[in-house]
């Protein structure tokens, strides 16, 4: 079967090298002109446990996992039960397993998938030094239609530091895999690749988030590690110094966010990244950043909740805390990335608006984007470096919190003569003096809100696209489920169901007029998100006027939302 996309799972115990094989396959596919996505799932063992590489290769950019897998390659069956729910198979699927690891477990066989036995271990053993995972790599490449050349090119690039022998061993194993592929019979195969227009990138959402902040001018980061956000910080650590910035590891998240405030007070755009538990600890300081009007960006990569929850799996459960978490009336900016590549653009935008509005910004990403790797088109540079409105001197007394029409007060930075002021978290006058006067509280509260509501965020507030005809149904969604939603809408369109997809990037401040325009002609709305309580649905109800017929589709992680379940709802609503 020739398909526009093929989904492949590679599974094996610790040391089997499924992640290595998966990543080489992904990058090789890219070199061959395809796009792709690779997620990973790991057992509970800290290290050396079982794992699955979850790939989808495609002729077009991939934003979502598919409903089922075409191919499951098992180097061994260790603890496969743990992963089965993440590996939907059908009778159309093909399972390829090493007979050395025993019979196919009944739970796998029950799917009805066709089973092919390939002796990876034996094939590798033919040449000492070569490994079963490389045989599997060659086999899968051959089956799905990736030529040997790009596979070997990527292989050599990743192994060249290990010496000639290692490379030759691996090449031989890959060749053995290619040779063995004929035994597998008919399996899903990729259609022809699109022309290679321009250099593609292989990048994770977390790396992309790091790049975005750097592009926008961030030059300081404070870091406390937490899964699944650590990679953002780990990417920034060696790269920030190359642009004259730096990263400091802190004692905790309370410190990390406050260090960012300190740096930003000094005029240096600053970022930190965390996940739910860490965001909880940053809440008080976010309030200070709001009250003192100090821009900072916090990238929150969501994982399963509540509490410690499921650190290695995705969920969209932190919308509430991001939007409403700060005590008092504390308007701020919340932006959600809608895909792996959008992690770059969204963090970049976050820095820009945060600096422009002197307001902390929370970027919501999640494990599914942050820790997955995608092949994306080269993301063009926006060319916009974040800019604050700065104090420019003058004869009068400087009022740090001057009431202005657009709510933005020129900010002075330490070192600027005559701009001296004390930043303040107490209620204050225009000059920043502590005040308990009602008029000051009202005026400063108004101003802090006004700078957000009167700012023109432009079209980036949401990605809006119609799939098929003139839709009267819209899906409103956010974050990483945008991918499956779009795929569902695309499929529904081929079934004659037209759908408008509104993927909201700018969560707060709300954009009621833009939403009203986006909903023109829409009679029914489906809100889709991945959490247990429909946080986005409730948020939309609170702040937007939606058509009377609103349905909500939500459920918790850790399993990803798949296009099919959304498609079914769309059909039912039509």
């Amino acid at each position, binding site marked *: 079967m020739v398909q526009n996309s093929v989904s492949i799972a590679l599974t094996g115990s610790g040391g089997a090298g499924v992640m290595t094989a998966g990543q080489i396959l992904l*990058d090789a596919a*890219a*070199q061959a002109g395809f796009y792709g996505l690779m997620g990973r799932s790991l057992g509970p063992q800290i290290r050396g446990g079982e794992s699955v590489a979850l790939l989808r290769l495609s002729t077009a950019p991939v934003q979502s996992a598919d409903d089922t897998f075409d191919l499951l390659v098992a180097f061994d069956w260790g603890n496969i039960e743990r992963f089965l729910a993440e590996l939907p198979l059908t009778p159309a699927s093909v399972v390829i397993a090493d007979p050395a690891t025993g019979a196919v477990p009944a739970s796998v066989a029950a799917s009805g998938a066709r089973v092919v036995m390939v002796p990876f271990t034996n094939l590798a053993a033919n040449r000492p030094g070569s490994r079963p995972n490389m045989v599997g790599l060659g086999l899968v490449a051959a089956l799905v239609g990736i030529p040997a050349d790009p596979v070997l090119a*990527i292989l050599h690039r990743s192994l060249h530091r290990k010496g000639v022998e290692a490379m030759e061993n691996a090449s031989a194993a890959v060749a053995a895999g290619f040779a063995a592929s004929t035994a597998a019979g008919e399996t899903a195969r990729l259609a022809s690749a699109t022309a290679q227009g321009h*250099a*593609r*990138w*292989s*990048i994770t959402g977390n*790396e992309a988030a790091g*790049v975005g902040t*750097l*592009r926008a001018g961030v*030059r*300081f980061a*404070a870091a406390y590690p937490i899964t699944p956000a650590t990679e953002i910080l780990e990417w920034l650590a060696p*790269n920030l*110094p*190359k*642009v*004259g910035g*730096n990263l*400091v590891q*802190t*004692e905790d998240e*309370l*410190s990390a966010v*406050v*260090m*960012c*405030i*300190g*740096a*930003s*007070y*000094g*005029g*240096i755009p*600053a970022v930190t990244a965390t996940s739910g538990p860490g965001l909880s600890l940053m809440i*008080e*300081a976010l*309030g*200070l950043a709001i009250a*003192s009007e100090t821009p900072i960006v916090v990238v929150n990569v969501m994982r399963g909740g509540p509490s410690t929850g499921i650190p290695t799996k995705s969920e969209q459960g932190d919308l509430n805390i991001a939007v409403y978490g700060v005590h008092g009336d504390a308007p701020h900016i919340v932006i959600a990335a809608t895909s792996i590549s959008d992690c770059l653009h969204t963090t970049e935008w976050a820095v820009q608006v945060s600096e422009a509005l002197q307001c902390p910004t929370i970027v919501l990403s999640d494990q599914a984007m942050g820790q997955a790797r995608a*092949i994306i088109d*080269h993301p063009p*540079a926006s060319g916009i470096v974040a800019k604050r409105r700065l104090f420019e001197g003058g004869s009068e007394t400087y009022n740090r919190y001057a009431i202005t029409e657009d709510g933005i007060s020129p900010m002075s930075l*330490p*070192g600027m*003569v*005559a701009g*001296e*002021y*004390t*930043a*303040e*978290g*107490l209620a204050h006058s225009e000059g*920043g003096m*502590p005040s308990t006067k009602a008029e000051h509280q009202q005026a400063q509260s108004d101003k802090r809100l006004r700078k957000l509501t009167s700012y023109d965020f432009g079209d980036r507030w949401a990605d809006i696209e119609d799939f098929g005809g003139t839709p009267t149904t819209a899906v409103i969604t956010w974050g990483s489920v945008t991918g499956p939603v779009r795929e569902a809408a695309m499929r529904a369109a081929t079934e004659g169901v037209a759908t408008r997809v509104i993927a909201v990037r700018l969560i707060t401040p709300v954009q009621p007029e833009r939403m009203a325009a986006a909903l023109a002609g829409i009679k029914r709305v489906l809100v889709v998100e991945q959490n247990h309580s429909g946080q986005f649905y409730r948020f939309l109800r609170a702040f937007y006027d939606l058509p009377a017929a609103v349905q909500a589709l939500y459920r918790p992680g850790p399993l990803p939302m798949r296009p099919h379940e959304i498609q079914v709802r769309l059909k039912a609503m039509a």
Partner: protein
Amino acid sequence: MESLVKASAARPQDYKSNLAPVWCPGCGDYGVLAATVRAFADMGIPKEQVALMSGIGCSSRLPAYTTAYGFHSIHGRVLPLATGLKLARPDLTVVAVGGDGDGYSIGGNHFIHACRRNVDITYLVMDNAVYGMTKGQASPTTECDWENSKLTPNGPGVAPFRPLELALSAGATFIARGFSGDPMSVTKLIVEGIRHPGFALIEVLSPCVTYRPEQREYKQRVHTGFGEPTSDRNEAFRRLMLDDQFTTGLLYKSDDVSFRFTPDTPLAMELIEQQFVL
């Protein structure tokens, strides 16, 4: 470090703002304010080059009473605030100020980690062994049997922290104690602390006349006795074992290197991004 050169024109009052302190008459913090502005004047640091960072408490109100840059932040977080600023803007003179509650209670973790990190910040703790701002509860330096707080009517029941000892064991490289009733010597410590290229702890005994009126006696209790500053930790611990918590002066000063960023070879963004290109 040109800004650290004394400019003869600067007077202490130039560093003092018009804002009337909220402090009670007689509060020790007035002396600390006086000592601070005098130190800036003595050093002739332009006021736009100084940033005074603070948390929350009576003592943390100090920044707004100066004409320098300042940040009155949240309770307990003054040290990360100051650290972030100093790391991002090494050109500035960064002074952190606050109280014993702010620094040793809620801010205790940042305190020990700031000692360890040794970033070039001068930290003035106005220690009155009480939470002044919230009307008189025990702080970590309050005596075990102080029964005048409604929150701990039988006394806190715990031995007080010895901040200098804690700082030394946490790795601080400049450790001193002053007394707000003797502002001139506090000024001297502040000048030395600012000149010290790492983290400088200056614990200042600063009476709370309202909730700890008996602290008016501090005048009689303070004394010198540390001797010449030592750079030997062993010796510093020895001296601290003899300390009655009222010895003033500079105890310890070492030149262990401070945490600083090492700049890297600059690279264009496009080159950095090459790593993702296939």
